[in-house]
């Protein structure tokens, strides 16, 4: 039996008085890729941002229900969101490297958390993270050049390297390929396959094909509700809910 890393129980999210998510109950298996699909504004990104409490930074945003990681409630008062975010990394829609060198980008996380003792150790960690992100061989000669000088796909892999530099257990990806060309997208997807051996990955995507390619489990959100969740294969060949069917075949926005 597959162990569940994340358990969401009746999670509702409100932006001021507007309900953005309606009692989502969803289990996310460990060291597998789960994709969240659904039309824009369906709440999938909101749900994703609940997992590392990114929504805390948005004014007027509140949450009810419980999200458990390894059976521990992440919204407990005793848990500092900083600590949570060190365990739950995030990759964003638009590649957002810091306007610093490639090295500085990857080294930033370990630095603020004090993960390394010496600069040699830090160098090693940076190199290792870049290798894991499949970027090292491409940029090893220009590791001190600005991260923004890389191509879009490389920037996104740099962001992934930055996220895994602090060895999180979970990586959240919010439409990581939406700004990339197909080749760069393929490289990221290859990387996601690779990373799934060591990390629990939750990915929000607008590309049904991408969800079908990279994930084992797919959840379909619509208007703040979780309509259907199941094995990716069956969702895309024979969804059980009519709304899912209509969405993935392009009949509803």
């Amino acid at each position, binding site marked *: 039996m597959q162990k569940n890393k994340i358990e969401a129980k009746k999670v509702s999210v409100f932006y001021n008085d507007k309900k953005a998510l309606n009692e989502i109950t969803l289990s996310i298996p460990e060291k597998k890729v789960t994709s969240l699909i659904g039309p824009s504004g369906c709440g999938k990104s909101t749900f994703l941002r609940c997992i590392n409490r990114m929504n805390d930074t948005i004014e007027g945003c509140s949450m009810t229900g419980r999200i458990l990681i390894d059976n521990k409630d992440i919204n407990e008062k005793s848990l500092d969101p900083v600590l949570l975010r060190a365990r739950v990394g995030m990759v964003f829609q638009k590649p957002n490297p810091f306007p610093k060198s490639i090295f500085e980008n990857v080294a930033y996380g370990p630095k603020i958390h004090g993960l390394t003792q010496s600069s040699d150790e830090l160098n090693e960690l940076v190199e290792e993270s870049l290798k894991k992100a499949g970027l090292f061989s491409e940029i090893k000669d220009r590791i001190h050049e600005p991260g923004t000088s890389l191509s879009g796909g490389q920037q996104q892999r740099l962001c992934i390297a930055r996220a895994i530099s602090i060895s999180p257990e979970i990586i959240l990806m919010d439409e990581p390929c939406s700004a990339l060309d197909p080749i760069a997208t393929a490289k990221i997807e290859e990387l996601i396959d690779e990373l799934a051996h060591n990390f629990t990955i939750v990915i929000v995507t607008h590309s*049904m*094909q991408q969800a*079908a390619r990279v994930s084992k489990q797919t959840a379909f959100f619509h208007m703040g509700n979780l309509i259907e969740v199941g094995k990716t294969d069956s969702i*895309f*060949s*024979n*969804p059980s809910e009519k709304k*899912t*069917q*209509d969405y*993935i*075949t*392009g*009949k*509803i*926005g």
Partner: protein
Amino acid sequence: MREQHIVTTYDEDLDKIKSDLFKMALIVEKQIYDSINLIKILDIKKAKEIIKSDDKIDKKEKEIRNLATNILTKRQPLADDLRKILIALKISGTIERIADHAANIAGRMSYVNNIPDSYLTDSIFHLGSLVLANYAKAISSYDKDSSKIAKVVPNLDREINSIYETCFREHLHIMMEDRETIGFCTQMLFIAKELERIGDLSKVISKEVLYNVEGVLK
């Protein structure tokens, strides 16, 4: 009323592949009908026509495959749309083979010089009409996306198989009684086999229709 895709040309493409395939199926139905009729009324010219029209079916099948490939690359269909394309590919191939069998029947009949006077069996016509009816059911289940009709097809096929057995035994009898008929009856036995194959392939079509409607392969 059926739900529409947001992209209307997508609907048009799906409609086109279905109507093209159904038209092809109707042409083949006519071919089966004609080739069965040849057994009653020997007509070499008609037989040649049927054999020739098989090329047309081959061409149609290629058109449908191209259209399907085109939809796959353009739309990357999922769920029921994907199944529609998948079964269209399979059914078009199946129908093409049915057309081959019909052409084979016509081919066999063109070797027959005359129907012996002593040949009295009705079983081969019975087999032919049943096969034709079952094929018609199969393609109408496709046309109407009807699992109800599709489920009838395998039952009819069992009947066809038993009639085929009867037909086979009858022809053996005839051949044993009258050695003159051996040449003709051998052709008839081959034709019966072709008809039985058409019956089997109709069952294949009905299975595809069931997969499309129910979403799972059984």
